[in-house]
């Protein structure tokens, strides 16, 4: 049984179709790299999975059970199991680093504060921010904020982590610290869907790479296949453009 299966998923912003029948199966512990030109629907796919887009046709199946996004109880369950990290970090600006990581487990899930705080401190130490617990987001660099956002997502104990261009709004010298954090997670066996323009990173870490264009999956394959010997013309064009730079 696949951990996550997406079958013919469609979604639209008004009349504009942004996901046009996405089909993809993800196994436990797999790292899926999602690549493609801007507007190809990669980020939209992640947003649709966590229910930030109104559901269209198609089906999302989690551990063999279809998810009905219109059912608020099921939507809550999905959001308990899938955590998303956004390109813009989306940290709560009115809270410290520690509060950002603990608010959801304590206030929303009702877990005891002491245990959650101990876990949060461990997680923040793991992402190298043990000394920033009392800092506010606007006192941190972009890379530090993104690592807090990753720690916050991990504090939810998700089954699957969705990373939406997490390095795209960072200065180049800060990218590596975030990528190192993700490498640690990969080593722990976390299932991840990663949207990124860091091709070297996608190639290094992904179990499989999905090339998307125009809201469709064009090609799925091992990194070696996608980057070295793509079968589809569009993949080849995209990869050759990327590798030229």
């Amino acid at each position, binding site marked *: 049984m696949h951990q996550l299966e997406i079958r013919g998923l469609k979604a639209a912003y008004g009349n504009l179709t942004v996901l046009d029948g996405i089909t993809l199966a993800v196994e436990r512990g797999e790292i899926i790299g999602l690549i493609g030109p801007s507007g190809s629907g990669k980020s939209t796919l992640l947003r649709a999975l966590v229910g930030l887009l109104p559901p269209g046709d198609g089906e999302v199946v989690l551990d063999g059970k279809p998810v009905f996004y219109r059912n608020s109880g099921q939507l809550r369950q999905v959001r308990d199991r899938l955590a998303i990290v956004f390109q813009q970090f989306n940290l709560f600006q009115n809270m410290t680093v520690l509060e950002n990581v603990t608010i*959801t487990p304590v206030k*929303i899930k009702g877990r005891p504060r002491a245990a959650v705080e101990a876990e949060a401190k461990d997680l923040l130490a793991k992402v190298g921010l043990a000394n920033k617990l009392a800092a506010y987001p606007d006192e941190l660099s972009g890379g530090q904020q993104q690592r807090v956002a990753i720690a916050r997502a991990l504090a939810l104990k998700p089954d699957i982590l969705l990373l939406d261009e997490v390095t795209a709004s960072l200065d180049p010298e800060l990218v590596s610290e975030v990528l190192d954090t993700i490498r640690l997670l990969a080593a722990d066996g976390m299932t991840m869907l990663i949207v990124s323009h860091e091709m070297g990173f996608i190639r290094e870490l992904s179990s499989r790479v999905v090339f998307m264009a125009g809201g469709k999956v064009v090609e799925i394959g091992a990194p070696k296949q996608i980057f070295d010997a793509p079968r589809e013309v569009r993949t080849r064009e995209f990869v050759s453009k990327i590798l030229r730079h």
Partner: protein
Amino acid sequence: MWDHLVAEAPRFFTYWNLRFFVLAGLTTVALSFTGCILGGIAGLALGTVRLTRSKPLSPVRVIAILYTEIFRRVPFLVTLMLVFFAFQLSGVELPLFAIGAISVFLIASAFLAEIIRGGMLAVHRNQWDAAETMNFTLIQALRHVVLPQAWRIILPPAFGFFVLFIKDTALASQIGVVELTYAGKVLNNRGFSATLSFGTILVFYFIISYPLTRLGAYLEARLASTRNPRA
């Protein structure tokens, strides 16, 4: 003229006249309180409803939009007259103060709804997205994430509105509510000089609205600091 005022003062500042002013002042405070506090609570509810997107709530949303858009555009005096005559026509007998308070509430809630909604909209969409994907309910998102960031945007125009609004409650005198302005008119009609009568209510209005301005400044400093006390 100054001599005239000095000569008149002992006759003017009697216990009964001052008592009359204080009671009228309390009516002004009560009307303002109804507008600011009850109107603020209703405004928060209206503003929040307008921000929701769920389909089952759409009839409530339409009502909230009509309510705020209509009452923000109607002059206070017109609303006051409408409420006054509506109750007269319906045969329901209400004290004049209640009619004044209802009118004040209608106008204040509509204005404050827009001030509050504007403040909440100014909080970046990504804060809402993050809360939503972590299973915050609307109320939880408002309480923990959105309102703490929106206060600093809401408070200055809200307190500006409160101060303007205290002065607008004077219009309730048009239907006979004995508030400060009405008290000034009564004493002026009794033969006291207009300078003394209206000069005194000026002081009363100041006494009511100045602490409110200070409270606004205090709350702004206090609540704004919840974002980052060291910034």
